[in-house]
């Protein structure tokens, strides 16, 4: 009985941990889209939700699936208040680029890792810009997109550290158990 309970708890925990990349992505989207600006609206919020997508797409693509990237992009779309599908498609395209060049991205470390993420963020921002330009049939000002890209890269290091800690504490042991 105790063994069964323990097995049940373990299974539930395992299921929860397997959803952790998706949940952390949604949490990051929520965090970045809280409509409070310390800079008085002068600076756009970073695309925090892209960090889990990038990180787990490289480290554990079996947990950060294309469907999970789709869900995180959808959450970003719903929470940011913009046109539906813009960030969903952008995240899916970024996921595709990162997944295709996974070996190149995964081997980066230090400043190279930041540059690798910058490329991913650039893909996401350019995708979103292109979608908006096509949907409005008008070229929007690129300044805000550049600011968002800079903020996203700036916030990559602390967010990646937090996600790395989460990975080591929860997802890493899950992998060794398996």
């Amino acid at each position, binding site marked *: 009985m105790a063994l069964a309970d323990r097995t049940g708890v373990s299974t539930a925990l395992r299921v929860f941990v397997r959803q952790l990349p998706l949940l952390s992505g949604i949490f990051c989207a929520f965090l970045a889209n809280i409509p409070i600006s310390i800079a008085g609206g002068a600076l756009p919020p970073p695309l925090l939700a892209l960090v889990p997508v990038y990180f787990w797409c490289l480290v554990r693509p079996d947990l950060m699936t294309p469907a999970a990237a789709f869900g995180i992009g959808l959450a970003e779309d719903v929470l940011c208040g913009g046109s539906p599908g813009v960030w969903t498609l952008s995240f899916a395209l970024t996921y595709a680029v990162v997944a295709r060049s996974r070996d190149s991205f995964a081997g980066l470390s230090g400043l190279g890792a930041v540059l690798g993420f910058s490329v991913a963020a650039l893909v996401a*921002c350019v995708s979103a810009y292109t979608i908006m330009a096509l949907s409005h049939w008008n070229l929007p000002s690129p300044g805000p997109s550049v600011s968002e890209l800079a903020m996203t890269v700036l916030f990559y290091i602390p967010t990646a550290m937090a996600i790395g800690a989460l990975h080591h504490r929860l997802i890493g042991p899950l992998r060794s158990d398996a």
Partner: protein
Amino acid sequence: MANGAWKIARGRGNAQLPLVVVVALALILVLLGMSKAQSGMFDQVRAHVTDFLAPTLEWARGPIHGFNRWMGSIGEIFSVYEQNLKLKEENARLRQWRNAEIVLEGRVRHYQALLKAVPDSKLNAVLARVIGRSSKPFLQTLILNAGTRHNAQPGQAVIDASGMIGRIYISGQRTSWVILLTDLNSRIPVTIAPGNVQAILTGDNTRMPMLEQLARTATVKAGDQVVSSGDGGLLPQGLPVGTVVSDGKGGWRVALLADASQSQDVEILNFAEPPEQLPPDAQLPVEAAGFKPMPPPPASSAQPPQTQPGAATSSRPSAPNPATAANAQAAATPALKPVAPPAQAPVPAPTSPAPESDDGISADQ
């Protein structure tokens, strides 16, 4: 970072949705969003999330606002003296303008009464507080603490003390999202004074939105005033928006009067254009009411001696009821009285009753 130190899994899940399918689904979502078919569902979710977060946002607003003010005031410490002088000068100038405005307002009221002009629509307003703001690359919004419970509806104009800042596009029960005039999705019809030039004010996520669809023959110059035109009946007419500036490339932009990044308390204008109705017969001149004009009365006995010259020429209706006669006389009276010269303003009282509709809108408003 230390990506290289992490173990990289090579395996992929068997039950994954293929990447191509996900991209195709996302593309379909974009197309649906463009067609506005699914936007309503997204908006409802957003409204629920914001309603849920409203107490937290209001709680967090105070410290953040205080911090922003403190940060903003650091740079102003060194220019307090100059600012004080400027403000005194501006205050004196505004007092002069206020006096002129009172005189002109009285004159306009008088002319409206004389001309029996269709009165401007009466606007109800809901005072709301900004509890959130987001400045995304493709979306610039404010979140207000007033929703459908407070009669705030999508489409209503939002103004602050300086001028128009945007309009509501999502209303939850307790909160509303405002699309700013600078937003990429914002398009409002405007009028450029003094030439009464019609144009569309189009946001492009810069601080100064563009003026589009100007007529080729339109003459616009920098410094012209831009107000909402009221075309389409979505927004009230005459809301101050900004002034025209050149973009240096042959086009025109608008420097907005209101700075949405500084707005804290705003008004939501409840604009619903009331249907224009004819005034009741009792308020019309006799001819307009369908009665025959009276022949001029004999000058001998019917005229009381104290009546002023000229009053005898007013048509005395052979009115079937006294109310019509009284109103006809009242309606005819203004034409007989000398108009006060402009120098005698401020406010000459209108001599005829202002037409008042059923919803209380009168000509003096």
